[in-house]
């Protein structure tokens, strides 16, 4: 157990809203080993972003956090703001969806990189500058010397995301949280950024949490996948296992709803009827029951726990899991 880098136990996040408390994250347990990649997949509003904020201790002030987040043996919720600040950078780093929000628009790329290095690693200015050039080159930015003098708005979206990654990697973090890092980018640039993240992760033996709405993004680039729905993890398994034998009907339906390149045009998509439930009105049973074609009374009355009855390494929260040798991949 000591080898775990990150472990979440019973993490819940509640946000007060005019319509009552909104349970954005509902009793989530997760673990992550050093150097491994965990994909968190879900649609908007499923709580994946709030979960990442809970890990980073960057929740909005009014949010209520329950449960424990243990990182490298320390309970993050118990740390002082000062200790947390020291942790971010050398231990924990984050890449957001929109690099414009994480980069300061009035400072040059160089200033932002050099200052991060100076503040966290106590580097000399000249050394920090040399290191910045190396970092920019490592994330695939051409002519890094010149780029140091540019402002974020002078770069394209893909380049900005590369800079944000360079800043996140600058202090050699042990865990990188990438929150939809490629959603705002074009498909060819997305492939490059995902490659870059995978390469740097391997090189630095860094753990990564890759948060996305796209099952295609996690398929080839994660060790384990957690699928979230309405604030809960509804299925969690090693990536190859998850895609080979989906047990939770939601995961199956989500995969089936993605248009496939190998099906002929005008193929009707097996859409998931309805929409996700209102998180301010918790349901007694399974949150997916109203949209699930296997649902019965039991599903509507009792919440299925996230368990692994077959000791097969894959957990799921469903009363009527899909049969093991599934034809899940249509």
């Amino acid at each position, binding site marked *: 157990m000591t080898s775990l880098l990150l472990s979440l136990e019973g993490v819940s996040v509640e*946000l007060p*809203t*005019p*319509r009552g408390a*909104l349970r954005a994250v509902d009793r989530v347990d997760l673990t992550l080993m050093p150097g491994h990649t965990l994909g968190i997949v879900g649609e908007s509003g499923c709580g994946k972003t709030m979960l990442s904020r809970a890990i980073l201790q960057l929740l909005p002030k009014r949010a209520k956090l329950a449960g424990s987040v243990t990182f490298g043996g320390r309970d993050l919720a118990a740390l002082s703001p000062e200790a947390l600040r020291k942790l971010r950078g050398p231990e924990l780093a984050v890449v957001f969806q929109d690099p414009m929000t994480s980069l300061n628009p009035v400072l040059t790329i160089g200033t932002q990189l050099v200052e991060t290095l100076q503040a966290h690693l106590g580097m000399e200015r000249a050394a920090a500058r040399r290191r910045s050039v190396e970092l920019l080159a490592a994330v695939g930015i051409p002519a890094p010397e010149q780029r140091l003098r540019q402002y974020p708005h002078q770069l394209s979206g893909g380049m900005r995301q590369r800079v944000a990654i360079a800043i996140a990697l600058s202090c050699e973090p042990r865990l990188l949280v990438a929150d939809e890092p490629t959603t705002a980018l074009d498909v060819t640039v997305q492939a490059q950024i995902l490659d870059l993240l995978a390469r740097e992760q391997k090189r630095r033996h860094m753990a990564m949490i890759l948060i996305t709405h796209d099952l295609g993004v996690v398929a080839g680039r994660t060790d384990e996948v957690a699928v979230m729905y309405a604030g809960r993890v509804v299925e969690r398994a090693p990536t190859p296992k998850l895609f080979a034998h989906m047990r939770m009907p939601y995961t199956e339906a989500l995969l089936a709803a993605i248009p496939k390149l190998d099906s002929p045009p005008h193929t*009707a998509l*097996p*859409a*998931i*009827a*309805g*929409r996700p439930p*209102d998180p301010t009105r918790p349901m007694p049973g399974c949150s997916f029951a*109203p*949209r699930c074609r296997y649902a019965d009374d039991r599903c509507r009355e009792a919440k299925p726990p996230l368990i692994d009855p077959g000791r097969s390494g894959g957990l799921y929260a469903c009363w009527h899991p899909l049969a093991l040798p599934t034809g899940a991949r249509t």
Partner: protein
Amino acid sequence: MAVLEIEGDTALVSPVRRRRSRPSGLFLVALVWLALIGLAAILADFLPLVSPTDMDFLGKRAPPSAEHLLGTDQLGRDMLSRLIYGARISLTVGLLAPAIGLVIGGALGMLAGYFGGRFEVITVGCVDVLLAFPPLVLALAVTAYLGQSVLNLTLVIGVLSIPAFTRVARAVTLSLSQREFVVAARTLGATHTRILMRELLPNVALPLLAFFLLGVAVTIVVEGALSFLGLGVPPPAPSWGSMIGEGRESLDIAPWLAFLPAAFMFATVLAFNIVGDTLRALTDPRPATL
């Protein structure tokens, strides 16, 4: 073959009804105060008040009594009566002048923001010229040539308020007219008039109205300042500004002569601001998001 799985979606339509946050107590107090002042001003002639210009030289600067509830001023005129008749002038000018700005400035701003081009350049240019004009000099010039009257005062302040309304309306219209719903109306073949009236006006009106209430507050202060300087309503008609001006001479012996109108003005201006802010918050169709 397409299977439309829409039944579930329809069944799940459960949009939450708009729940307005309860207006605060402060808002209610402000509303009551404005209602009281407004009613008193409208019904001043029918209220059992002493004439505001009747002088009682024996009872100069008298403290509050049964006869004069709020005392008398330096010429022995009833303070309560003068405050209420003063409210009449302050509110008339305060509401009418920004109304001129709202109508003319709002229309100009919307047209400039929507059509752009040369019309916008000319409008913005004129507005900038008007903004650069020293307001006191204009007020002085107008009162010097046309004489002091409530109408002239209202017109001067009204004209001076046009640029601000034009700018607000233009800014809001500019951002809205790039929005998809306006483009959608264009693809439907809607005429310019229809887009302006049905798509833009309802969205521009509220920011403008909120700005109008702010304008009322500012105008009451401006009217007070002009009257204080002797450029406003001619004596002996009372206005809050001129009352403060007259009370200034006896600040040391009878401070309430200046304080009472100042307090009325303060409370009224504050009330307009509170009402304006609350109305804007209440009428936003999007509830505070998560």
